[in-house]
């Protein structure tokens, strides 16, 4: 490479930083837009195929919109659904950046949530200012520990985290069932597995109760925003974050540069688990008020989709989580108004991710939306 060429390359890079070029714009905006549009169309096709008439399909998409952003209550529900998705999604995004594929958010959410509940009712004598934050912390630490197991196994023995986190998920379901049947966890006088309730002093306070007591938006939304800022700071402003990204982008290069690959894996997994545990704690302290079997309700798996849609960037994850939260909230409205099952949302979400994760596919379907690249610089 001649001096001129390298200068050109450097200038291109600077220019790109100053003004993101068209490819980046395509990747970040056009692909998601197309993905969402196609997913909605295919969702409509699915409804047609199951004998839903066109008017109802129209009504259901209107309900989707109204139920997600159409009123104060809808916005509140959207945010409530988005909080755990964003938190767990941030953790997964952090893992992706460090080259770790953490399927175990589901188990980490369960363990974190359970720990938060147990801590809450065990120390129910403590005042709110101490108990609530400590309960959240208990959730985060437990999640971190649970994910740390997978991280440690990966670092120490090379056990692939996909398999070990799936196993930890399966273990967590049984562990939760077992814990919920213990006499000091189970609610008095109940035979079914239900934990004691979270005391008021550990609950995340409702923010909009003065407006309408039915609004469920809780203080977890601040936890969510803080977590977004924290992950952004961690990933892009600290040495540790740089090491995460470096070992994710090129493990070999990171090792040759003297980074402790094993330690980074454990820390990255633990941080991801802490965020997932926090998501679980938020669910139980802010929404559910107790732990029941499988209270995570698939949030850990949806969070994978959120992290992917957000391109593993904290801000992206925030928007992706809000979008998925809106879909959840709108989906419930859809079920009520148009009688269309909320499971349709699952289909739409999965389709969005297919198209996001396979940009080549979107380019193949919509060749006119993209500038033709002859050089093949992107892939």
């Amino acid at each position, binding site marked *: 490479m001649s001096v001129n060429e390298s200068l050109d390359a450097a200038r291109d890079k600077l220019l790109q930083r100053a003004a993101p070029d068209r490819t980046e714009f395509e990747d970040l905006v056009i692909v998601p837009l197309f993905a969402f549009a196609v997913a909605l169309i295919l969702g409509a096709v*699915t409804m047609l195929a199951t004998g839903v008439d066109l008017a109802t399909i129209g009504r259901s998409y209107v309900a989707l919109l109204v139920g997600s952003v159409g009123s104060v209550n809808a916005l509140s529900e959207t945010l409530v659904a988005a909080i755990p998705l964003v938190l767990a999604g941030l953790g997964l995004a952090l893992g992706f950046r460090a080259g770790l594929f953490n399927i175990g958010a589901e188990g980490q959410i369960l363990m974190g949530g359970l720990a938060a509940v147990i801590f809450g009712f065990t120390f129910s004598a403590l005042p709110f200012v101490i108990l609530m934050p400590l309960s959240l912390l208990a959730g985060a630490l437990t999640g971190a520990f649970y994910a740390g197991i997978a991280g440690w196994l990966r670092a120490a023995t*090379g056990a692939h985290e*996909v398999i070990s986190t*799936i*196993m930890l998920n399966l273990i967590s379901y049984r562990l939760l069932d*077992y814990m919920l049947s213990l006499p000091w966890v189970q609610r008095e006088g109940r035979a079914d597995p239900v934990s004691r309730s979270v005391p008021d002093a550990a609950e995340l306070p409702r923010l909009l109760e003065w407006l309408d007591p039915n609004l469920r938006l809780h203080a977890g939304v601040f936890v969510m925003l803080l977590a977004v800022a924290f992950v952004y700071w961690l990933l892009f402003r600290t040495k540790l974050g740089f090491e995460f990204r470096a070992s994710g982008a090129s493990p070999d290069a990171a090792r040759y540069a003297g980074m402790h690959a094993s330690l980074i894996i454990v820390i990255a997994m633990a941080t991801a688990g802490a965020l997932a545990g926090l998501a679980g704690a938020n669910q139980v302290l802010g929404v559910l008020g107790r732990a029941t079997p499988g209270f995570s309700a698939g949030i850990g798996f949806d969070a994978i*989709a959120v992290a992917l849609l957000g391109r593993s960037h904290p801000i992206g994850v925030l928007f992706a989580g809000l979008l998925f939260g809106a879909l959840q909230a709108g989906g419930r409205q859809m079920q009520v108004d148009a009688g269309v099952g909320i499971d349709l949302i699952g289909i739409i979400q999965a389709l969005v*991710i297919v198209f996001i994760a*396979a940009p080549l596919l979107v380019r193949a379907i919509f060749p006119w939306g993209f500038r033709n690249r002859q050089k093949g610089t992107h892939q």
Partner: protein
Amino acid sequence: MNGAETLQRPNAAIDLGARRRTRIVGAILILLAAFVVVVLGDAPGDATFRLSRPRDVWVLPDLIVPAQPFIYIAAALTAFLGARQFLRGGGRWTTLSLGLGLGLGVLAFLVWATAGNAFSLTGMLQATMVRAVPIALGGLAAVMCERVAVVNIAVEGMLLAGAFTGALMGSVVGGWGGLLSAVVIGGLFGFILAALVVTYRMDQIIAGVVINLFVLGLTSYVSSQVFAEMRHLNNAPVFRAIDIPLLSDIPVIGPMLFQQNIFVYGALIMVAVSTYYLFHTRNGLRARAVGEHPRAADTLGIDVYRTRYLHVTIGGMIAGFGGAWFTLGSVGRFDENMTGGRGFIGLAAMVFGRWHPVGALMAALVFGFTDSLQQKLALLQTPIPSEFLAMAPYVATIVVVAGLIGRARPPAADGKPYVKE
């Protein structure tokens, strides 16, 4: 992802690792023996195991085991194996002793749980086989995919799709039609997975997760939207057990292997055929070459893309067949998310069975055994919570993946997309 690293480890490190592993196994066995003595030591009475049912052709007498002596003997044997392992074990003995020790531990546990009680061994083994079927088929599907280096997290979704299609088409066109459509749909999802990861070079794990989410969403949607109102569409005939003449009269083994429905026979045949195919035919060798070193395979004129498409599709068909078990093979009705993670356990069976069809079947039997044991224990009312027993196989899988027992090595190119030059 880390297969290459493990391969390049220098010999000295392997020796050290092996010695450490030997020690760990020895310690585990000694601990197990201690556990058997301390926790299970107090077992008054005899344990009665029924080996045959009254109407069987050959009626075996009940097996009556004096509980306490048996448990102490088992513990002593386990402790001996552990001590031997700790002091001068190694090589093939490590895995063998561990297997023996764990087997003894399980037997001691069974005897302890049954002490002073009677319990049908035959019934439990039959249930073990039945419960192992979907797991074995899921594991086999994953083996077919991973042998050509495509990680298939989507087994879960494919099982679910097979279960759903089996119920729907089974209700419309009858059992065999339903089974056939389940296989076709499974193959279709296999093909989609192959298209996403081979042609569109999507990350394999993401593709799998997405297929799982999609199938879960689609089947739950249709079952709540359509099945709820039209019940006749979710009422498929169930394949009954077929007794194989003569063989089914063998005590204990007969009911387990030869008084089952076509899904059990199908799983056994498929495991045999795929073992033969993968390890004793030219095409199987080619498939494995694609999984180990696609570039080399390509250079030798093997069409890597075609091989991957083919095997992932076949894997999907196997998973579709396994999925049909849930509806056509047991209850005839589809429920939301009725596979309940069995596909993931199938993946675990694949790892546990070291990427080998027979290994996957054996691992699936272990999972099926703990599953049915757990059910029985609830009846026998033992003080050990059944949840822990249910967890045991998953913990075992983690231990296997971590390489503490033997070395589980995935195909070298596993999970990596191949870009043709």
